[in-house]
């Protein structure tokens, strides 16, 4: 024993003391303590403030249902708000602070709210704060927000690591109390793959908190033995400190394992793991949660659940008070009095609402049958109670038991609604359980240890039977039945003062009555109007009580009144745990081209393009602005030769006897008669007729094509082509495989591109203009025998090629190209220069192909063949997509060439007012054209081609610009395409 609040015994390790701090006070406890038990052991009862009225709050429970004892745990970036002290394992150096107060915990200035309580009743805020109008956001709301909320985030990035994982089993057992352990033993002994998850750090459930006997011995010892046996089984996995948070479809459960929360530091390992557990069967053995009784002043620190008081005494060897009283409507409550008295705790009174003989003898206690508590005394903690008779009893702890509610939450995650069982005055699991789930023990309403053991065993045997696995021999463990008789009793009507239902959100019986009076009669409306059950405990201790009050108000039964809906998670889960590793650089994979390291060595600036990193430009020493680099890359390419990594384009290998016919249906334009050795530009429509992707496809053989797609749409195009192949035309012999990763591909563009390539291409291949004209392709060899593919295509408008080699040679080819290009002053160019040149040429790209544009808008309507079936051609003929006054892709140049255009500017007629009705289009892409020495833009404008030469406004009020622009052809540079055919 140590200190006035410690008892003998308990499951704590007295060989070692743990130092911790609460609100700066240095305190000690033992391994095996929770923060709550350690606080109680130090005589601390006031630990926080309630949400609305800032009333003093203490420790109410001994489990995860705790509504009151919430603290900020740890410090700095590790600070963790709203941590339930009742489940926080004590460790050496633990720091905790109370929360939700202005000033000190004892002298919270916001406690003034409590004095205003008459004006802050249910829904008061819906009825006021409306005048003056502007005051809501400036005055009222900030005040409400500052007062509400509970703990504080640190404001700093969470410094811990998190992980996820996947587990597979025949049988998941949720909860390792008597039912769960009995089930686990049956399953484990049969050899089934079994997982046992329990939220506590010691398995055993109530057996650790009670003085029950199992198999003729101590229940706690039996539990420890069972856990030891299970741990030795190869096919059984025990997951302590693991809460099953939700039941999802098809037997998948989410579970949160707290790996290091009981340690001072994580040692670099994940703090928590989110498990996805794939099960064939699951048995819910989640136990039950005790509920209170509503009476005047029942929120004072020192008023606790009876089972919790018992747990603190038995498991943690802590007396919750020096003079404890009991207020109950059931036999189980008496157990607390008996157990406490046995341990030498002074039980001053037992008050039972039932009119009957006392259930047990409690030495020295005032026993009051057919009696009720109407009020409490005390300021920051309980000092006494008042009975209906006027009798006053001095107490510093009142243990309250209103009966037990089965923890049915997970049974409801698929829409099941619990059903009322009058005999135990509680809801038990109803229909529509998640598939494969059974319920056993107290969670099923079997409240005695004997029933729990038998129920768990039977449920496991039944589940094993369904899986075709015979259970090993042996029956369930044996225990005797305890008395659990209960008489439904919810609310002391003669209460003086407010009677609390939801301790955290400050919802009282009066609030429920008032909201019913105002018409919020459905339980869901009641919840939403009063906020009952919306606190961090989701009403685990409050809801049933409130339902009973509502039922009383409406004259309906509790069964008719029904419950609100339980949703995941069972207990709150950190966002970081749900995110796992995915943050920072690990948020998504990075895709790099084979030439990436080379580009990095050149000092390239990279840009994200989907998952890819692409070189945006290659700054040279002395270039201080990105435009200098980009202009140089463009001018060099147009003047001589440039090389650009285009590996990221999607590439699809298409083979089969019907490959040509297949492509003919995939592309809007014809491909059936493309000659071997030729490339063709292709436009793809969605079935709704919208242009969604473009690219080139080369015919390498009669039955062999290779397609390129845009970087962004590579995956989508492949998916759609597989759909067409498998679902639309399964009779065509065509086969697809992605080769995006297989080939490193470079554009070599500019008047010297052929001369450069001729230096690398093996001599037996003739790539002269005559032998290898514009839109030719072929399989060649380079650098002395390395296989390559060469395509004479051009996105820049220059004489240009794309050359591809197997990815392993990608970096080496880039180096070889640059080395061979030295004599031509070859440049590497990035995506910016690529963009400039394509805009100068009027080629549509992502900003134009944004899923909203038709072939007609792009000026490509003649490509949509009317002579064949292809995806999208029928619906592309819908009238609104072919309006004469429709949008058309045009070029735009500022009248004043020193002005810069901006993408996203809208186009308005000169003199038209800026309103939606006058909106004529918008600028899609802009670039500074070094060739034209002007900013140029592409954009869509109504009836564009008919308006060439007209001046309109490029109106960008967002960036304060309004630029007169001339409508011109979108082909700014070499409009007749002479340069690419030389």
């Amino acid at each position, binding site marked *: 024993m140590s200190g006035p609040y410690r008892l003998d015994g308990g499951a704590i390790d007295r060989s070692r003391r743990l130092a911790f701090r609460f609100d700066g006070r240095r305190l000690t406890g033992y391994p095996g303590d929770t923060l709550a038990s350690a606080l109680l052991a130090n005589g601390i009862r006031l630990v926080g403030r309630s949400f609305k009225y800032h009333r003093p709050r203490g420790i109410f429970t001994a489990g995860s249902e705790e509504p009151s004892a919430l603290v900020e745990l740890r410090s700095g970036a590790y*600070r963790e*708000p*709203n941590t339930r002290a009742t489940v926080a394992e004590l460790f050496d150096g633990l720091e905790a602070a109370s929360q939700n107060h202005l000033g000190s915990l004892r002298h919270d200035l916001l406690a003034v709210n409590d004095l205003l309580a*008459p004006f802050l009743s249910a829904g008061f*805020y*819906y*009825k006021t704060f*409306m*005048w003056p109008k502007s005051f*809501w*956001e400036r005055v009222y709301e900030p005040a409400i*927000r500052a007062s*509400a*909320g509970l*703990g*504080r985030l640190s404001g700093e990035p*969470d410094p*811990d690591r998190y992980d996820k994982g996947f587990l597979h089993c025949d049988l998941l057992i949720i909860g390792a109390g008597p039912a769960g352990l009995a089930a686990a033993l049956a399953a484990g002994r049969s050899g089934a793959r079994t997982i046992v998850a329990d939220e506590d750090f010691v398995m055993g459930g109530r057996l650790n908190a009670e003085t029950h006997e199992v198999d003729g011995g101590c229940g706690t010892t039996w539990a420890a033995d069972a856990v030891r046996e299970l741990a030795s089984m190869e096919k059984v996995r025990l997951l302590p400190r693991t809460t099953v948070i*939700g039941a*999802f479809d098809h037997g998948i459960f989410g579970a949160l394992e707290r790996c290091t929360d009981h340690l001072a530091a994580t040692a670099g390992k994940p703090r928590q793991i989110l498990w*996805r557990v794939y099960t064939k069967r699951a048995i819910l053995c989640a136990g039950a949660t005790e509920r209170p009784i509503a009476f005047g002043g029942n929120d004072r620190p020192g008023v606790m659940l009876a089972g919790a008081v018992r747990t603190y005494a038995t498991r943690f060897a802590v007396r919750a008070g020096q003079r404890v009283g009991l207020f109950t409507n059931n036999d189980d409550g008496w157990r607390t009095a008996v157990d406490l008295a046995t341990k030498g705790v002074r039980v001053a009174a037992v008050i039972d609402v039932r009119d009957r003989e006392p259930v047990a003898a409690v030495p020295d206690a005032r026993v009051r049958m057919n009696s009720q508590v109407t009020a409490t005394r005390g300021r920051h903690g309980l000092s006494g109670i008042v009975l209906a008779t006027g009798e006053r009893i001095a107490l510093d702890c009142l243990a309250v038991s209103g009966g037990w509610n089965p923890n049915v939450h997970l049974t409801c995650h698929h829409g099941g609604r619990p059903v009322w069982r009058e005999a135990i005055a509680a809801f038990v699991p109803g229909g529509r359980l998640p598939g494969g789930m059974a319920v056993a023990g107290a969670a099923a309403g079997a409240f005695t240890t004997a029933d729990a053991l038998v129920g768990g065993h039977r449920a496991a045997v039944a589940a094993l039977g369904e899986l075709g696995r015979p259970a090993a021999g042996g029956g369930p463990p044996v225990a005797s039945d305890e008395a659990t008789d209960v008489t439904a009793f919810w609310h002391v009507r003669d209460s003086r003062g407010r009677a609390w239902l939801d301790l955290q959100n400050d919802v009282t019986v009066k609030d429920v009555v008032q909201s019913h*009076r*105002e*018409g919020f009669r*459905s339980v*869901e*409306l009641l919840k939403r109007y009063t906020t009952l059950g919306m606190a*961090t405990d*989701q009403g685990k201790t409050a809801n049933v009580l409130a339902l009973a009050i509502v039922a009383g108000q409406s004259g309906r039964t509790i069964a008719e009144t029904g419950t609100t809906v339980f*949703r*995941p*998670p069972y207990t*709150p889960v*950190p*966002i*970081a745990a*749900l*995110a*796992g590793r*995915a*943050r*920072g650089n690990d*948020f*998504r994979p990075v895709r790099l081209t084979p030439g990436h390291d080379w580009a990095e060595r050149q000092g390239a600036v990279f840009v*994200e*393009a989907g998952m890819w990193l692409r070189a945006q430009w290659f700054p040279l020493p002395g270039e201080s602005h990105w435009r200098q680099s980009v202009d140089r890359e463009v001018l060099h390419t147009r003047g001589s030769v440039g090389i650009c990594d285009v590996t990221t384009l999607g590439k699809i290998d298409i083979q089969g006897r019907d490959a040509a016919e297949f492509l003919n249906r995939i592309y809007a334009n014809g491909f059936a008669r493309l000659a071997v050795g030729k490339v063709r530009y292709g436009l793809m429509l*969605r079935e709704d007729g919208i242009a969604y992707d473009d690219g080139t496809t080369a015919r390498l053989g009669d039955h062999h094509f290779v397609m390129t797609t845009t970087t962004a749409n590579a995956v989508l195009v492949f998916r759609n082509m597989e759909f067409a192949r498998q679902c639309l035309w399964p009779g065509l012999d065509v086969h697809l495989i992605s080769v995006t990763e297989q080939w490193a591909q470079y554009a070599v563009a500019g008047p010297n591109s052929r001369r450069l390539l001729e230096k690398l291409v093996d001599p037996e291949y003739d790539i002269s203009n005559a032998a290898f004209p514009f839109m030719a392709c072929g399989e060649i060899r380079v650098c002395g025998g390395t296989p390559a593919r060469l395509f004479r295509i051009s996105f820049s408008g220059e004489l240009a090629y794309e050359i591809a080699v197997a990815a392993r040679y990608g970096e080496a080819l880039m180096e070889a190209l640059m080395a061979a290009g030295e004599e031509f002053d070859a440049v590497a160019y990035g995506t910016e220069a690529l963009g400039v040149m394509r805009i100068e040429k009027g080629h549509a790209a992502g*900003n134009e192909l*944004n*899923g*909203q544009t038709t072939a007609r808008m792009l000026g490509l309507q003649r490509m949509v063949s009317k002579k064949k079936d292809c995806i999208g051609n029928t619906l592309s003929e819908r009238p*609104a997509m072919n309006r004469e006054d429709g949008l058309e892709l045009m070029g735009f140049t500022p009248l004043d060439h020193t002005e810069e255009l901006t*993408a996203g500017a*809208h186009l308005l007629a000169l003199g038209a007012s800026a*309103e*939606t009705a*006058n909106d004529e289009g918008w600028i899609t892409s802009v670039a500074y054209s070094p060739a034209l020495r002007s900013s140029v833009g592409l954009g869509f404008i109504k009836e564009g081609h008919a308006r060439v030469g007209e001046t309109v406004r490029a109106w960008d*009020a*967002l*960036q304060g610009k309004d630029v007169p622009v001339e409508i011109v052809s979108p082909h700014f540079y070499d409009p007749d395409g002479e340069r690419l055919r030389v």
Partner: protein
Amino acid sequence: MRYSALQILKEGLTGNRGWKPVWREPDPKPHYDVVVVGGGGHGIATAYYLTAVHGLTDVAVLEKSWLGSGNVGRNTTIIRSNYLLSGNEPFYELSMRLWEGLEQEINYNAMVSQRGIINLYHTDPQRDAAVRRGNAMILAGAGAVLLDREALRRQCPFLDFDNERFPIKGGLWQPRGGTVRHDAVVWGYARAADRRGVDVIQHCEVTGFDIRDGVCRGVETTRGAIAANKVAVCVAGSSSRVMALAGLRLPIESHVLQACVTEGLKPAIPGVITFGAGHFYVSQSDKGGLVFGGDIDGYNTYAQRGNLPTVEDVCEGGMALMPMIGRARVLRMWGGVVDMSMDGSPFIDRTPVTGLYFSGGWCYGGFKAAPAGGYCLAHLLATGTSHPVAAAMRLDRFASGAVIDEKGMGAQPNLH
């Protein structure tokens, strides 16, 4: 009873015993001028504007469950008018203006809180799209501000600007965007409509339509037949099911949109923030919970629940964007069934059945649209013509090709 601070004072001093029911609980009459099916945000707002704007009082709203039990009771409460296309933007701007005067008009504090909404961008193409959108908003009178990194940093210093994967380049800010206490919207409209004589009838499910010779003459319900001159259906989430009772098929799929709320926290996030490179948006409620969500699960469903991978994906986005929220705990995750239309935009239109009107296809944006949705449907019901800002929201637009496809995803509902 008019709500005011004075009334609260008076009631507070007399034990709050004098509060009156916010609405009557009438039995349905045999005939109404207009029957509105669906007691959610849109249905109730429609009834309210029928009375308040058009003077029609012989109106009933039929709700199969409790009032506001559909999507108005399970959304993330965001209001905004930051749309791109002319078929949408003026409509949502009308809605925003109605929000701005709502509380004084209906004498109910729905906590319309214009804290602003920021859509982040991470790439140049996203920036270009944001500029186009921002200008479309300014053209429609909605207002928009382009924030560069530094301006953004002043508002939201906690963002991971230099996220190693998708650095933040800036954001498009609509200062007038914000949040509203969602349940209060339906309560406030219902109270105001009730006071003007509308019968708000809960627990009355429509089981069929009385259609003769192509004309809808009323509805059959679990509480008997109710005749009506006009019937309007506003049952987003159940549109296909209810309209099938009238023999109509719709360009709509039903999907589940999940959302999460954390435990209450002291103020940490000022307005609404959406991540441009992941699936995540967040705001903080007046109670202190971080309210967040992302994309729909992506498969057809009528179950009001989703699956874990979507929640994980959303939280991944959250941690990539603002890693300071890691230790905030998700308290509750829930799902609502949404009407996903074929172009991601809604319908407010008459149907091929004379006298039967339809509002639906709100995708996951129905909440913010409730005032304008009600206003425009009331306009159509009362005048027989579409309100100009809703004129494009026609059921036949897929036949004509005049689609309103904000995201450019085409006829694949789960991508909108």
